[in-house]
């Protein structure tokens, strides 16, 4: 078989993803979704053909239809999956020191989908699939996606 040759010359290049301007419909959908946070409400977008409720809203359904009806879903739900992550730095995705975050996947009651958020106020040992959680709303939600990103154990 082949012997390894000496190291060859490496030539640098890059793929400048920064130049891409992706489009997403959700700009319009999100405005509505985020506005509801100001009243501490979570909305879902329902598909007229199959009835699935998407939270956050999605402009297309798996059944090849366009979800269009806004419904309210609960701000309480169940954890379907989780992990613990270290503190990450954006540039190199390096695992750093710092507080471990508990990331949970939550399916809110009334929604048919799961979204990822952070669990606060619980010890890692308490976390498990099936645990009930509730969104911990900020005092005065500003209508940003961060408003729904933190949950706590629901008693």
């Amino acid at each position, binding site marked *: *078989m*082949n012997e*390894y*040759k*000496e*190291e*060859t010359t*490496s030539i640098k*290049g*890059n*793929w400048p*993803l920064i130049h*891409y301007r*992706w489009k*997403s419909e*959700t*700009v319009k959908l*999100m405005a509505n979704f*985020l506005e509801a946070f100001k009243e501490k409400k979570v909305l879902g977008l329902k598909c007229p053909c199959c009835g*699935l409720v*998407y*939270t*956050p*809203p*999605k402009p297309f359904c*798996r059944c090849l239809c366009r979800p269009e009806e806004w419904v309210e879903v609960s701000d309480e739900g169940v954890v*379907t*999956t*989780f*992990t*613990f*992550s*270290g*503190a*990450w730095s*954006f540039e*190199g*995705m390096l*695992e750093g020191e710092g507080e471990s*975050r508990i*990331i949970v*996947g939550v*399916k809110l009651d009334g929604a*048919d*989908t*799961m*979204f*990822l958020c*952070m669990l606060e106020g619980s010890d890692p040992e308490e976390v*498990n*699939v*099936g645990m009930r959680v509730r969104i911990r709303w900020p005092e005065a939600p*500003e209508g*940003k*996606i*961060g408003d729904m*990103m933190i949950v706590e154990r629901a008693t």
Partner: protein
Amino acid sequence: MQDVAVVGIGLSKHVSKRRDVNIAELVYEAVSAAYEDTGLSPHDIGAVITGNMPAFEGVNLPELWGAGHWGAYNKPLLRITTGGTTGGSVVHGAFYAVASGIFDAVIAIAFEKQSDGDTTMGLNTVALADIAPMLLYGADPTLLISMGGGAIGAVAYQATSYMKSSGCTTHHLDKVAAMCRDNAAKNPYAHLQQPGITPEEVAKTKMMEYPLRFGHCCPATDGACAMIITSGEKAKKITDCPAYIKSCTSCSDEGAVFGLYGGGTANVDPCEQEGCKIAAKKAYELAGIKDPSREIDVAEPYAPFANQLLMFYERLLLCEEGGAPAVLDSGSMYLDGDLPVCPSGGVISTNAIGASAMERVAECAMQIMGKAGEHQVKKEVHNAVAHGWGGALNLIVVAVLGDTPRG
């Protein structure tokens, strides 16, 4: 349908950094090995089917520049790329090219030169377009990143929900890793070879992202694989024991987990993997296999992480749901067991992403042809199942191979 068979396989050496060759040369190693294996030459080949995952090398359509090295000159060529399932999708393309009757012999090529790029950044390019809009809506970037699962990605979520539903423990994960790395030590083309490694040693490795430790994760590999696939008629003239590809199926689910379009129902429980069950069921039906747990002799699921080997064993219908940890404990998955899993060492030992799903098929073919050398399983191999997985947890490819054509 024209019968389809694998007559030859070529693999390059798989290591973490092939800085001595460029993409075209790396692939040439595998292609020329395949020709040597069969005694054929490009003149005998009707078409070239090729693929890789282009984010790593930073080259768009690398065959435009490189395929001259691979005997593709003036030949029909088709490029298929589907992320982690690429290698399997390329085999599917080759399968249909022959099964359609249009070609009698094709070469399927899949590769990845991960060292040309940055693997973590390359994997991030999968999600960037979905994450970018989230930042517009005021999502905290550090929180978003911490949800990404780091180098592990969304598999961490699959692992925790699987462990809950199946009773799989971290000790099972350690055993899977040890089994695979030990198998890999018998495979000259595997990357991470750790003969005699114990589960206890795996358990001591650094925690990457709960619940997966470094020892439970795949490496980043440079490697290429080529397979020569022909009609059943032609196969008989080339080799005494062709490995017939009885069926190829795929089943794509909703994109899951991250980003704006992560709101699919498929990820409510990321370990459900409905698509895999459907694809496997159809593959067995087409292949005439009624009870895969008895009739499949060897399985090569695509499992870059230890939990996935057990999860996909179940999703490939080789045992009932939740049953894989017990099957592992019974010893049946080991090289000398009743239904060996990843005798090659699997993706957890060697992961040149574009090639990995093809190598699952190649390894099954080698087991059927009796050409797996030191990692040949003890039992006789009549039927095998190869699998690929990837995408936003949503892409699946399955192939069933056997020592006879589809009945």
